[in-house]
């Protein structure tokens, strides 16, 4: 079956511009997660959704970052007024439910470069 998909795969943007990153989870997965992976670093938790609500947004680095999920499916991570330190790979993952968070299936990521 189809795995987690993310788009775009690569995004180059100028400092100060807004960007939107999209995640399509595996069909039927109710939990969805966003992570950030900086070069040479581990994955950094950003936010998780259970259905369309986000019980934990504690990992979002600043108020320039926001995310939403609609229809218990697609999620969008938005970064406003991008900064060079936002350059990273943004990974999305999904799982059947948050209680089985360890069975997270990851997408290929979106590589964001802020120039």
């Amino acid at each position, binding site marked *: 079956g189809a795995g987690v998909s993310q788009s775009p795969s690569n995004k180059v943007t100028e400092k100060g511009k807004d960007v939107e990153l999209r995640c399509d989870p595996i069909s039927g997965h109710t939990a969805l997660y966003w992570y950030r992976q900086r070069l*040479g*670093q*581990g*994955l950094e938790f950003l936010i*998780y959704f259970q259905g369309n609500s986000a019980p*934990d947004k504690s990992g979002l680095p600043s108020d320039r970052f926001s995310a939403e999920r609609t229809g218990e499916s697609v999620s969008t991570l938005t970064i406003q007024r991008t900064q060079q330190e936002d350059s990273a790979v943004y990974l999305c993952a999904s799982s059947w439910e948050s209680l089985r*968070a*360890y069975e*997270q*299936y990851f997408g290929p990521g979106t590589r964001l470069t802020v120039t």
Partner: protein
Amino acid sequence: QQQVKQSPQSLIVQKGGIPIINCAYENTAFDYFPWYQQFPGKGPALLIAIRPDVSEKKEGRFTISFNKSAKQFSLHIMDSQPGDSATYFCASSSGGSNYKLTFGKGTLLTVNP
């Protein structure tokens, strides 16, 4: 604050060797310890995981060893193959916040033919 420390950063072994990757955690509430494998350009994939009620778990050529008192766990890859060359991440989570995986910084493994 880094809650999961992973070592080494990189590792090179010959085919057939047994690379060992180590992780140490600080949060005693952690009760789930997965390992992820990531190939270039791909997202991480769950490889194997352990809970603290056992000291060892094997799946194929991959083994996790867990030492609760030392708050350490490690991944062993038996009879390593060039196809095992990837970045490996350990992670931890606690039952109360099971969704929030805390990852180590990763180990780049190269298995030479």
